[in-house]
């Protein structure tokens, strides 16, 4: 069963084609991570799957239905997206932000039903933001702020969540905090998570399914253990590296070549690696 599927999807900005005739499936109930070099179109792909960008041609299917034919509010009840680096207006509390995830369910006079309240509370609990719900979003740390936004997408009560680089601008501690949270949401609540990540090692650690994008097309997709190797990294990122098992998780870990102070623990005097 596929939640999201693209059929001959072509995306472009004006005349400039970003992705050409793409066929892709996103497995249900899994964490899928899109990887690729800067500007390869992975974010564009994610945005188009959330109907933020209209395809030049081809189509996107959500639960087997043509997305373009679904009312936008119905899509919002099935699929939530957290874009990259969202900015909240000054003076908004966490609760006021998270509450807005209920937008597709609200009506003129019905803006805070018991169900709204229960789901917002649940979203705050599962992101660990319940204690901070009266705080202003501006006053939070980067990691907390990102958790608040994730809570808002959770309040949308969708089976599928799309996130565009949810760890950008976060230090390592907060990156892990956010990714662990998404992992738990997938694990406990069986939500399908699709995200763009820059860090391949973290991608391998959390993703069930990886999609590598290169040259306007999907270069390869599958389990990280099956597809991430030297060749893929060389072709997709144009980078020479060793792929070794992650010492903690055993998942593939890329150790890139390049310049550095030491080589194999010793000072490298005249060793030159030509990548």
């Amino acid at each position: 069963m596929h939640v999201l599927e693209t059929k001959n999807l072509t995306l472009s900005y004006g005349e400039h084609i970003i992705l050409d005739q793409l066929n892709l499936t996103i497995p249900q109930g899994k964490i899928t991570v899109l990887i690729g070099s800067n500007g390869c179109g992975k974010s564009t792909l994610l945005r188009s799957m959330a109907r933020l960008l209209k395809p030049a041609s081809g189509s996107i299917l959500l639960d087997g239905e043509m997305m373009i034919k679904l009312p936008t509010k119905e899509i919002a009840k099935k699929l939530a997206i957290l874009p990259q680096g969202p900015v909240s207006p000054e003076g908004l509390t966490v609760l006021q932000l998270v509450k807005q995830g209920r937008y597709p369910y609200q009506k003129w006079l019905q803006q805070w039903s018991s169900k709204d309240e229960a789901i917002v509370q649940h979203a705050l609990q599962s992101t660990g933001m319940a204690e901070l719900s009266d705080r202003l979003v501006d006053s939070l740390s980067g990691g907390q702020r990102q958790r608040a936004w994730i809570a808002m997408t959770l309040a949308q009560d969708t089976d599928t969540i799309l996130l565009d680089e949810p760890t950008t601008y976060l230090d390592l501690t907060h990156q892990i905090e956010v990714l662990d949270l998404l992992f738990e949401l997938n694990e406990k609540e069986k939500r399908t998570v699709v995200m763009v990540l820059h860090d391949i090692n973290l991608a391998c650690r959390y993703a069930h399914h990886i999609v590598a994008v290169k040259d306007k097309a999907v270069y390869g997709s599958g389990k990280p253990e099956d597809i991430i190797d030297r060749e893929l990294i060389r072709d997709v990122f144009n980078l020479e590296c060793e792929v070794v098992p992650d010492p903690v998780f055993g998942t593939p870990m890329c150790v890139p070549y390049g310049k550095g102070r030491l080589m194999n623990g010793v000072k490298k005097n005249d060793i030159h690696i030509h990548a």
Partner: protein
Amino acid sequence: MRKYASVRAFRDRISFLIDRKAFLYTVIFLLFLGVVFLISVGMGEQLFSPWKAFNIMLGNGSSFESLIVQSFRMPRILISILVGISLAVAGAILQAILRNPLASPDVIGITGGASVAVVLFLAIFSNESNALTVSIHWMPLAAFIGATIVAILLYLLAWKNGLSSFRLVLVGIGLWALTKALTNLFMIIGPIHQAAQANVWITGSVYGSNWSNVQILAPITIVLLLIAFIMTRHLNIQELGEDIALGVGARLERQRFSLLLLSTGLIGSAVAFAGGIGFVGLMAPHIARKLVGSSFGNLLPLSAIIGAVLVLLADTIGRTVFLPIEVPAGVFTAAIGAPYFIYLLYRQRNA
């Protein structure tokens, strides 16, 4: 005490989350508006205490006192309040759709459009002896048309595969400069005495308001205000940015268009009766935001009341302190507003 109260009726079909602090502020400012109202009714060449003013309003005064209060002061006060409400709510809406805290009716040229229309109106419908050839009562209509034309221009020029906030602001500032230039041009070309008349109008004054003005403006303001309150959750979502708004299923273009239309209606009708009273649309939402934050359910009512207080205070001072000279209300709103604007710019620079 809990910070929020859930209000629910009819099996949640009517349900809101009320922020207690915001509710409290709204009540306090409403009371404050009431006090300013009574003081304003009592002030003028004939001075009454607020208590006396209250009694006169209830019909317990002499016929002379009633005449002063009912026929001269009340309409003017009510127009001030309505205009303040309209400008403040329009400002708050513009700040949301443009996602810019410095946006206001003045800055994006809508008020300017009304000014051009008024100057043109005075120039076209005058004969050689400087007398108007049509009734002055048509001037509000001219102002409204001017505001609407600029809003339409703004929309058309900013449109490019959709309506981006950024383009709206830039095009708006361009239009503002253009209307300013046109107003000056027509004033210089036109006869000198009209320039004076036009100038009072452009500064913004509620001088000479009467009950028929109130009868026209009140229903318009009330209807538009209700629509604004219905649209609060759309305003809230717009403030989170285009991607978020589209993501939760908002029909962004349509909402932006109707919100722009709504604010044009509010500005146009306010400007039509009170001229270009400046800075209220900027200041009132800002002060409200400082007090209750940026959730529109809290922000709109408080902005409206603060706007009403500002214009009413400005006009009360203007018509009493410098007697027998009347100073237009717009002079005072600008006198507080301009430094406030500079302060905001300064703060933004340091942010």
